[in-house]
């Protein structure tokens, strides 16, 4: 089970490097909608982190509350 997991993770990395020649199917200049602030998972970080704190303080569950990505893909 342990070997399987680590093999999977390393293969994922291998695939990621080998597949660098896959053409992005959404071109950089087609990302205007994704760059729109309304498409951000946390448009107002101060507000979202406060709300996460409200829930975390009263619930048993915690974690996996947000990340980053999407956006304009510039540079």
């Amino acid at each position: 089970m342990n070997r399987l997991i680590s093999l999977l993770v390393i293969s994922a990395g291998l695939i990621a490097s080998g597949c660098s020649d896959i053409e992005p199917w959404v071109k950089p200049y087609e990302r205007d909608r994704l760059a729109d602030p309304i498409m951000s998972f946390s448009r107002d970080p101060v507000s979202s982190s406060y709300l996460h704190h409200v829930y975390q303080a009263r619930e048993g569950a915690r974690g996996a509350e947000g990340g980053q990505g999407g956006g304009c893909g510039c540079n």
Partner: protein
Amino acid sequence: MNIVKAIIILASLAISNVSLAAAIGGSASDFTLKSRAGKNVKLSEYRGDVVMINFWASWCGPCRQEMPALEQLYKKYQDLGFVILGVNLDEDSSKAANLLQKIPVSFPILYDNTKKVSTQYDVKAMPTTFLVDRDGKLRYVHKAYKPGYELKYAKEIKTLVRE
């Protein structure tokens, strides 16, 4: 198991990320786009001048950062036979117009809202800047923009303008 891991890691390190470069040295493909003045503009009209084609959009932060630097380059080298064509890729051209009110530039702005020319030029980053020489050949390409790139542009423009 450790040896297998090591081999996999080394093998993947050897696989290099070959970025598909634009065809440097080849002819820059001709295109016709409407400018913000309303006229149709053709790339081939500028044969004999050094042309910088800059692909940008209003929603792209680095593009906005780059604009004032491009304006400075345009003002400086304009009289030596240099022009910048700012190809805008906004779906909604009014957004580009709004931005240009806040960051005014004097070089021609062309609207490519159908993304025809950006596909033709295989634009892979926002922004992307191409430099075309007086014979219409593609000489330099720059993907992305970081403060300081304009110094590279200036060097290349000086070289091309002297030809």
